[in-house]
């Protein structure tokens, strides 16, 4: 056991840090995917994570709500360490508690096909938060209206377009009234003409002050909505800074090469 505990606290890790990753490492078999990532998400902050395919962005954001179990390092929610179990345990909070407060939206939507749009959104609040059906429906309708899909409340997921599905998925995450949202390539599975409607919803959330970590390939969108942009490559954070610095005037060589492909 080492005596000295190295605390790698990212610059913005203040008292109002919502979610923090410290020294996250993860391998799949022999392949190291994450080699020690530190990232803190302050209240109201929007952080975009960009980088080439296979750089570990998605694995990292999945570690942030423990859908992927890190081999090393820790996740902290509001300063409290998240344990390996579902339930809270003394000083550690459980994964269940973490996920109740930190929502996630997936690349492939993952709506529940056996539930209507409204039921998809009320599932979490009723089953996990214990809200009454009536209460949950009122809240759900609010969020469905926010994403412009109030009229689809009784539709089945299979009847929606990709963009509509993703907006329902966002409403489903919001209905839990989370402290932070994790967005994992939420437009990558969409037809190009449907990307705009989803980004519009995310942009509005950013304007409303929602704390978000966004893994994305939409560089100009990232530059526009983020307070901070993180460039990942080869399982490490290779560059990090305000969007202007990272996306418009990159100094890092690999980052330049990466961005050049988008501007071609």
């Amino acid at each position, binding site marked *: 056991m080492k005596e000295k505990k190295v605390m790698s606290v990212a610059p913005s890790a203040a008292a109002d840090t919502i979610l923090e990753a410290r020294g996250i490492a993860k391998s799949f078999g022999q392949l190291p995917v994450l080699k020690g990532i530190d990232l803190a998400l302050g209240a109201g902050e929007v952080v975009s994570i960009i980088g080439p395919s296979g750089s570990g962005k998605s694995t990292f954001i999945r570690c942030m709500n423990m859908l992927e179990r890190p081999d090393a390092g820790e996740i902290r929610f509001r300063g409290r360490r998240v344990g390996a179990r579902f339930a809270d345990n003394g000083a550690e909070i459980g994964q269940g508690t973490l996920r109740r407060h930190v929502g996630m939206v997936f690349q492939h939507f993952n709506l529940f096909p056996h539930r209507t749009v409204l039921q998809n959104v009320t599932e979490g609040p009723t*089953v996990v938060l214990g809200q009454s059906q009536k209460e949950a429906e009122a809240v759900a309708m609010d969020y469905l209206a926010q994403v412009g899909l109030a009229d689809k409340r009784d539709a089945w997921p*299979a009847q929606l377009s990709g963009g509509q599905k993703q907006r329902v998925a966002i409403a489903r995450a919001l209905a839990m009234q989370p402290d932070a949202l994790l967005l994992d390539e939420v437009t990558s599975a969409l037809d190009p003409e449907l990307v705009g409607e989803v980004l519009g919803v995310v942009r509005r959330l950013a304007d409303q002050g929602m704390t978000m970590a966004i893994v994305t390939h939409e560089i100009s969108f990232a530059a526009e909505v983020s307070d901070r942009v993180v460039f990942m490559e080869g399982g490490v954070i290779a560059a990090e800074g305000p969007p202007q610095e990272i996306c418009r005037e990159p100094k890092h060589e690999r980052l330049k090469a990466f961005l050049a492909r988008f501007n071609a």
Partner: protein
Amino acid sequence: MYSWSFFPIFQASDLFLWGLWVTVVYTFGSIVLGLVFGLALCFCRLSGNRVLDWAAQGFQELFRCTPLLVQLLWFYYALPLLLGINIDNHVAAMATLSLYAAAFYAEIFRGGILSIAKGQSEAGAAIGMSKAQIMRRIVLPQASRRMLPAFINQSVIQFKNTSLVSVISVADLAYMASVVNGQTYRPLESYTAVAVLYFVILFPLTRLADYIERRLRVSE
């Protein structure tokens, strides 16, 4: 030329009806017990616990790779010697049929559950649901729709397999055919009547399985 006469068969109709009742009771009893035990086996297989997984798999293979007829004989004639107690033929029949059904149902459940995309469980986890809630509210409802045709088909087979209990003197429908044959000396009519009874009950069920399968394919 053989001259058909179903008259003696009609005279024995209450024997057939009693046999049919026994067959139905054994079928439904073993389906219900098989469902419960099969679900338990399936969860053992999926538990991630090696010992439970191996034990359940061993049990399944034992029952899937030996003939039901042999299992019935073994439970009725061999197991009592091993345990030093008498096993009633009705108990042996019901137990064997149920365990046999469980081995096959467990495989249907397992396939159905594994066929549900991982993203579904993750979406449930992401809104804070526990493993049990995810299984009950997200995975099983979707999996059971997919399993339904296979489940009905296996149950049709179960209904027919019940006829084997006649070898340990359980008076089911097939057994009654022998009884009536013994009384009337009309094997052609006796066994034809029994075959028709089986067919009349099972044909609608196989149609139902096909219908559900077609509807599922449309809705997915």
